[in-house]
């Protein structure tokens, strides 16, 4: 029997086959997974903001793309994943309200997605799939048995990337 591990907002965790790791209702946040297809070890971070260095308060490392991805990488490799085999997938980064642009957080979803790409490039980890942007929430699951990343949205068919 596989277990389901839940990751909250500004949270991260790791997962091994046959277990599933999930986060519910990603809005403008990003759910990023790292996965080693050979050992079938993976992990997920659900971060809220692109950059910890622009913040005064950054005690929670899972809240930011840069520090969150670093920590996730540390955790999955410590659990036995091979760094050179790791692949990444991302989902989320939606713009929940179709605002016109006055507000500072207006394009935060897009900036969150870009932050993942930049960080992964620095770390030389391949981003092999993404489902980001648009204007709806997503619940995501990484099935460690197969490496499949399930994306569920209200009123839409389940997508697997």
């Amino acid at each position, binding site marked *: 029997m596989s277990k389901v591990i839940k990751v*909250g907002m500004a949270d991260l965790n790791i997962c091994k086959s046959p277990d599933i790791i999930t986060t519910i209702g990603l809005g403008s946040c990003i759910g990023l997974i790292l996965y080693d297809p050979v050992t079938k070890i993976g992990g997920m971070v659900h971060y809220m903001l692109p950059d910890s260095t622009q913040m005064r*308060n950054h005690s*929670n490392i899972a809240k930011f793309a840069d520090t969150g991805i670093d920590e996730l990488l540390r955790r999955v490799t410590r659990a036995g994943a091979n760094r050179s085999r790791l692949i990444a997938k991302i989902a989320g980064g939606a713009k*929940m*309200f179709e605002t016109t642009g006055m507000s500072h957080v207006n394009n935060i979803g897009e900036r969150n997605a870009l932050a993942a790409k930049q960080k992964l490039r620095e770390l030389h980890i391949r981003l092999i799939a993404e489902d980001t942007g648009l204007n709806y*929430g997503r619940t995501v699951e990484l099935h460690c048995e197969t490496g499949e990343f399930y994306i569920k949205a*209200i009123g839409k068919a389940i997508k697997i990337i």
Partner: protein
Amino acid sequence: MGKFTLEEVNDRYVDVLREIGNIGAGNATTAVASMLGIRIDMSVPKVQLLEVSKLGSAICPEEEIIVGIFLEVQTDIEGSMMFLMKMGSARFLVNKLMGRDEDYQRDFDEMDLSALKEIGNIIAASYLSALSTMTTLVITPSIPYIAVDMAASILSVPAIQFGQYGDNALLIETEFGDDIMINGYFILMPEQDSYDKILTALGLSI
């Protein structure tokens, strides 16, 4: 500027927010009651200080579908505000407004969304008008934007806004209704500098 964080929120500030919530909800109740032609009572709002990471499940389970109405505000205060309702409350209000049976359950169509947006707009504007009166600051709201989606997804917007400054968020819950009670939640999200302005205007600067 910008020294204020919600970690330092004191009881007096919460009292003032509750009072603004009270007046705002009072204004909103009157407006909605006359729009729908029903009698409405309301309760005293509850103000909650929550951890940002818990906001997604603060009003219902994370995956439950809710309605969020979002407005940007500008002029003396820069920022945004949100009014949130659970589906039961939203359906009740739309069905009343459209003159339908109370048990009508079909998915919202364009007209329904537009009606909800307008109800949310009236409620949010009533709240902002109370805030404006108490602070004597000029607050200009944008047109309303609506989202019907998972609670955690909608609440990620205020979570991120508050998350930029600290680890806490303020949520104001209000309840009004006659036969059935409507639950609504306000979240006011001023930019950092605007917090100081609000506090100073209220004589509460720290």
